[in-house]
């Protein structure tokens, strides 16, 4: 299988162009030989024409390819390419002329072969120059192209192609058809030459350079054109290659476009700074509107703001005044001035119109600007814009100029836009920071929640004599409710429920202390009253003075079927008596832990004991249950709790617990959030 390599248009066209040119040279030399030796060479001029056209087309293809391929097609580069080709063609032509001058009247200077050879070289270089320029102009014309311009250009290329073949028809005579064709091409060139949109994009310096390059091109093309005219009259040339509509047309096009560009660039010089300024403003705006990236700070935005405003207004001095929460002002980004003079100027400004109307606390400072004259030895006009972030005025931007009425409408508009954009960027930055911070707090709370959840028991100790179920929910991420069980062995169990005063994080810390106290004391197998007294002693040492813990402590003996209990300020325990089929609250005196932090505490603690029967139910809970409020402000209360238990007394503890919680939820209503922690432990004896 053959694999065709993709033909390299550049190389092929160069090769064909060189071959065409060599063939052209050879044919013409043959013709001269024939003429000199008076032998009919038999080569028709059409052969030369065909070779010439082939040369034109291949050079055209080569340049088209090479310019399209070149990535670095800045305008200045393009023009330089044209200019350098021009210099080459111009230079070599001058050298040839110089060579003939040195020859003087020698025989060699009359040698038609040599003359013909040089003619071909000049022809080739002129063609190269013109075609390269034409294609470079194509790039410039088609910058910011529209469909119309593209079509116009394509028509021009077709016209050029036709003009190459014109020679067959016209036979190198200057007749009306030639003139008509030329005029047509010139008009087309002029209409194309108004496409000069690339010029404003040059900087001031680039404009100067391009003026120089264009001048070189104009000079080169003029010289080459004059040289070409001189050939028309020359007798020694057998076939005139240069009196060609294509070449003359190209001359016209290259010259006209260069001239137009030259003049327009020249006249654009004075306004180029305005265009550059607008471009800088657009870029600045874009920089300001990009939200601050991580790792950047507000001051970078303010830096860009200051630079942008200074350059947009040609201000002679400027600074930013920032105010923090405590209304302390701070000066930053001072430009062409120092803190001392700023303080003096601010003092003057705050007393003069219209600046005195500014109010830091006004809510309508956004997009407001103040400008006017000031009485100052150096500065004559001043501009001030408040920086408003999140409806709060965080600072002021000041600009000063040494001329009167230095701030025109356009400047003020652009500066307000800059200020607005910078404020949005700062606001976004602050919001983002806050969001990150809150996110971190949430993360911390999640950890606290996890730790606290692990403080509540996973396992509830019990034996065959009773079943047990428990539930706990916190109003905040963490809560202050506590319950636990303990197996002493020998059918004896401890049950505890507790509620730490307050809620949230502080309650959660105290709850973990309570757990520690429980686990230490339970090891000594204390009686309920002893337990509470020791717990009070221990907690008195570590609770803050306005914190207390309420708790109920039970010891259940499943063999003796007795319950011994004490209460420390905790809401009374609910008990279902299966024989009477009645629920009631166990009444017992008792004071909360940490309320009385001395020996007197003992006096207020009781201990009671009773026997239980199977099917009896013990419900330990925290006040979040009875104090749960509905939308009308009514509490769930003790009665409802009691009735709910009686109603569900035949169910197992798990179901009783679920029913009570459901009842509370139903009472409170779906849309209300619990505002206290609530816990529940249900024990049912078998």
């Amino acid at each position, binding site marked *: 299988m053959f694999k065709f390599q993709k033909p390299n248009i550049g190389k092929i066209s160069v090769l064909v162009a060189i071959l065409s040119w060599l063939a052209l040279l050879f044919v013409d030399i043959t013709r001269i030989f024939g003429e000199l030796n008076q032998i009919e060479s038999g080569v028709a001029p059409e052969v030369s024409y065909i070779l010439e056209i082939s040369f034109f087309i291949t050079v055209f293809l080569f340049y088209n390819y090479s310019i399209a391929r070149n990535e670095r097609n800045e305008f200045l580069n393009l023009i330089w390419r044209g200019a350098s080709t021009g210099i080459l063609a111009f230079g070599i032509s001058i050298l040839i002329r110089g060579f003939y001058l040195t020859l003087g009247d020698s025989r060699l200077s009359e040698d038609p072969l040599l003359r013909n050879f040089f003619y071909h070289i000049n022809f080739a270089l002129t063609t190269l120059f013109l075609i390269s320029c034409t294609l470079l102009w194509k790039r410039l014309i088609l910058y910011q192209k529209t469909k119309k311009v593209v079509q116009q250009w394509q028509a021009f290329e077709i016209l050029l192609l036709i003009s190459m073949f014109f020679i067959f028809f016209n036979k190198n005579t200057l007749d009306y058809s030639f003139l008509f064709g030329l005029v047509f091409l010139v008009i087309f060139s002029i209409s194309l030459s108004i496409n000069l949109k690339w010029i404003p994009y040059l900087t001031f310096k680039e404009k100067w350079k391009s003026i120089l390059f264009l001048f070189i091109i104009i000079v080169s093309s003029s010289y080459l054109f004059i040289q070409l005219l001189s050939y028309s009259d020359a007798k020694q040339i057998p076939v005139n290659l240069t009196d060609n509509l294509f070449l003359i047309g190209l001359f016209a096009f290259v010259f006209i476009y260069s001239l137009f560009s030259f003049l327009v660039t020249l006249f654009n010089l004075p306004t180029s700074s305005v265009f550059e300024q607008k471009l800088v403003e657009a870029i600045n705006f874009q920089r300001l509107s990009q939200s601050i990236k991580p790792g950047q700070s507000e001051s970078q935005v303010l830096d860009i703001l200051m630079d942008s405003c200074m350059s947009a207004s040609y201000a002679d001095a400027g600074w930013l005044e920032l105010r923090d929460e405590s209304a302390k002002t701070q000066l930053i980004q001072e430009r062409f001035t120092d803190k001392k003079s700023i303080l003096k100027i601010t003092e003057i400004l705050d007393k003069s119109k219209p600046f005195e109307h500014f109010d830091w606390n006004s809510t309508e400072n956004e997009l407001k600007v103040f400008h006017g004259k000031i009485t100052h030895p150096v500065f004559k006009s001043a501009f001030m814009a408040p920086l408003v972030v999140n409806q709060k005025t965080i600072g002021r931007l000041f600009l000063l100029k040494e001329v009167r009425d230095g701030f025109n409408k356009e400047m003020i508009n652009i500066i307000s836009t800059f200020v607005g954009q910078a404020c949005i960027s700062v606001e976004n930055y602050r919001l983002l920071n806050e969001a990150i911070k809150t996110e971190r707090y949430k993360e911390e709370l999640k950890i606290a929640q996890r730790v606290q959840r692990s403080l509540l028991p996973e396992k509830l100790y019990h034996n065959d004599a009773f079943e047990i179920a428990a539930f706990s929910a916190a109003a905040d991420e963490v809560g202050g409710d506590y319950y636990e069980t303990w197996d002493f062995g020998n059918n004896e169990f401890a049950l505890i429920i507790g509620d730490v*005063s307050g809620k949230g994080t502080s309650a959660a810390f105290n709850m973990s202390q309570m757990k520690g106290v429980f686990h230490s004391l339970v090891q000594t197998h204390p009686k309920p009253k002893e337990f509470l007294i020791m717990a009070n002693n221990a907690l008195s040492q570590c609770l803050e003075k306005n*914190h207390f813990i309420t708790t109920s402590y039970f010891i259940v003996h499943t063999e003796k079927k007795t319950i011994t209990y004490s209460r420390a300020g905790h809401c009374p325990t609910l008990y279902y008596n299966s024989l009477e089929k009645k629920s009631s609250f166990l009444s017992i005196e008792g004071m909360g832990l940490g309320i009385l932090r001395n020996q007197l505490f003992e006096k207020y603690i009781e201990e009671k004991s009773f026997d239980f029967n199977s099917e009896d139910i013990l419900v330990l809970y925290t006040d979040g249950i009875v104090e749960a409020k509905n939308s009308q402000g009514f509490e769930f209360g003790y009665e409802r709790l009691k009735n709910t238990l009686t109603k569900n007394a035949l169910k197992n503890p798990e179901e009783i617990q679920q029913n009570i919680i459901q009842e509370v939820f139903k009472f409170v209503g779906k849309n209300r959030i619990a505002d*206290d922690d609530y816990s529940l432990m249900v024990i049912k004896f078998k």
Partner: protein
Amino acid sequence: MLKIEFTKVNDHFILSLSGEIDASNSVDLDAAIQEILEQGAKKILVDGTQLEYISSAGLGVFMSYLEEFQEKEIQIIIFGLLEKVHQVFIILGLDKLISIKNTQEEALEAMA
């Protein structure tokens, strides 16, 4: 919502509480008591007739001053509590440490 007012009447202060005391506003109650103490009060009557709810945090405020009251021999009497609020004091056992009366007259009488 909690509204706190206090006035000096003869030799005693009357601290009126209306609304609900919870964790969020218990600091206000603390500040009010602090101020009364700074004014050198020796007898404080707490008017609880308008008090609808008191949370553990609110109770904690009263509790935290018990020792100071005792040391400085300051008398404090709460009167006119709603039944359910009174119940909260009783359950916690605070009624054993702070005198609670039904009416202002009883309170004044008890103050002697």
